[in-house]
């Protein structure tokens, strides 16, 4: 039995949306704050005295399910001291186009040297530009992303986030 009145109800649903604020965000101008746990672009960290935290143990490379991290370690020498440990990462590269952002590398790192930041704007025009070298990873990211209240939306369980 046709019930035209019920069909008309749907028109009300579409019509009333006109007076609501659209839910889409005008992206390049408005950046929605990500939650603090969001896993974005990687960062390598230094100690306050400038020494790198990474000691080149390759645990991150071992933990990576996508095999996108390459670490080549070298020995620190007294006149060329780079990291706090015995060795340092002479080459540290991440192929971002392969990375699946699972965050296993930051879980694996025993020295809190690598963490996943909140930046997600990491597209490039060329694949080779997606290969992040150590210098790029050590430098603070150029594009900043706002982050929601960390106190409320995160737990200080990942030690490094408290001390980063």
């Amino acid at each position: 039995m046709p019930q035209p009145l019920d069909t008309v109800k749907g028109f009300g649903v579409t019509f009333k949306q006109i007076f609501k604020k659209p839910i889409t965000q005008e992206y390049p101008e408005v950046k929605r704050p990500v939650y603090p746990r969001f896993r974005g672009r990687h960062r390598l960290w230094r100690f306050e005295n400038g020494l790198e935290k990474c000691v080149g143990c390759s645990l991150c490379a071992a933990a990576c399910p996508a095999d996108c991290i390459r670490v080549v370690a070298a020995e620190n020498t007294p006149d060329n001291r780079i990291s706090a440990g015995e060795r340092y990462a002479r080459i540290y590269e991440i192929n971002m186009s392969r990375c699946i952002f699972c965050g296993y590398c930051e879980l694996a790192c025993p020295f809190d040297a690598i963490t996943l930041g909140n930046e997600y704007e990491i597209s490039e025009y060329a694949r080779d530009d997606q290969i992040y070298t150590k210098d790029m990873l050590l430098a603070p990211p150029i594009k900043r992303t706002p982050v929601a209240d960390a106190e409320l939306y995160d737990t200080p369980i990942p030690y490094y986030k408290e001390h980063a």
Partner: protein
Amino acid sequence: MAILERPAIYEGTRIPSPIPTVLQVPDELREGGDILQVNFGPNHPSTHGVLRLIVDLNGEEVVGLEAVIGYLHTGFEKNMEQKTWWKAITYPERIDYVAFQNNEYVFVAAIEKLLGLDIPPKAVWMRTLLNELNRLHSHLVWLGTSGLELGAISMFWYAFREREQILDLFELVTGYRMHTRYFQAGGLAEDVPRGFYPECRKFVEWMPKAIDDYEALLSRNEIWLERTKGIGLLSAEDAIALGQSGPVLRASGVDWDLRKAEPYLAYDQVDFDVPVYPNGDVYDRYKVHIDEMRQSVRIVAQCLDVLEGLEGEPWIVDDRKIVLPPREELHTSMESLIHHFKIVTEGYRVPEGEVYVAIEAPRGEMGCYVVSDGGPRPWRVKFRGTSFVALEATATCMSNALVADLIAIVGSLDTVMGEVDR
């Protein structure tokens, strides 16, 4: 299990023979020479990715049909054999990328079954909650795309409005919107943040209103009824014989839900109903999806009640053989550091054996068959792709269908091609 009494419209549905998955053109039609063979897909707006349907048309009527799959075959199962158990957890999420949390759970549950682990209550309830949120997410994607395919374009946007909220919740808890790797063998990867509960409460209060909107838009809409009632019939017997599960089976009148039949996680402690509809047509599948969404919201609310009382409880088992040690110990305990290195480099070992774990994923029975040789890597992982099985029913559902019904039927079977091709 009870099969609802079936209405008379079932006359005529039968599984094609000899090939159950191919609808063959009758010889007399073939000889007539009026058959137009059209290739729907692999690139077509409404084939859910890369499904290819070879369709024989007699005018507008579908007289022959063969589904060709494999265009998204990525070899997940082979890949997982090369990874340690720990690393392999990231793979199942990407198989059915709409029900990632359920897929992850089924694999983690298989590992835990082999290991004989008991997980802490907080992890149990949180897993239940996230699984139900994911079911909502999956049904919303289904609802949106099905509406779009039948021409109700606004439905897509309304469904995706709520989907966004769910993804935000996932981002809040797990750190990633889709492939979360949040379930680890033994519990959860991280504790639940304080701010999650109020955010999730807000969503639980909002969602029923949104579902009312969907129903106002579609459920009683004359054109929607015309398009979905009596289309894509599948009788209860045929559905069971074809291995259908989930909403498709329940829409055919079979009261079967693994959450009730063999309860896992906390499903035996929450209160919910299983919607069953008797007709086995596209409309009933739509109704099952809508009703399940309401039930999922109920379950999420109950999980929240329990979880709020579990503040401060452990979220992962304290077993140093399987779980990474707490991070603060890495700086103080040499033993912990060694464990950490061993688990990351070599991975934990899982006792020899074979298990088959099945859960009620949004699309039905999601099974995971795992064989372990006692080593750090799975010997064999096989997933029972729900969509893979669902697609087998296309030929049976397609009797007396027109081109437009073809779209509605394939849509109603709710297939995700990543899961079909794996």
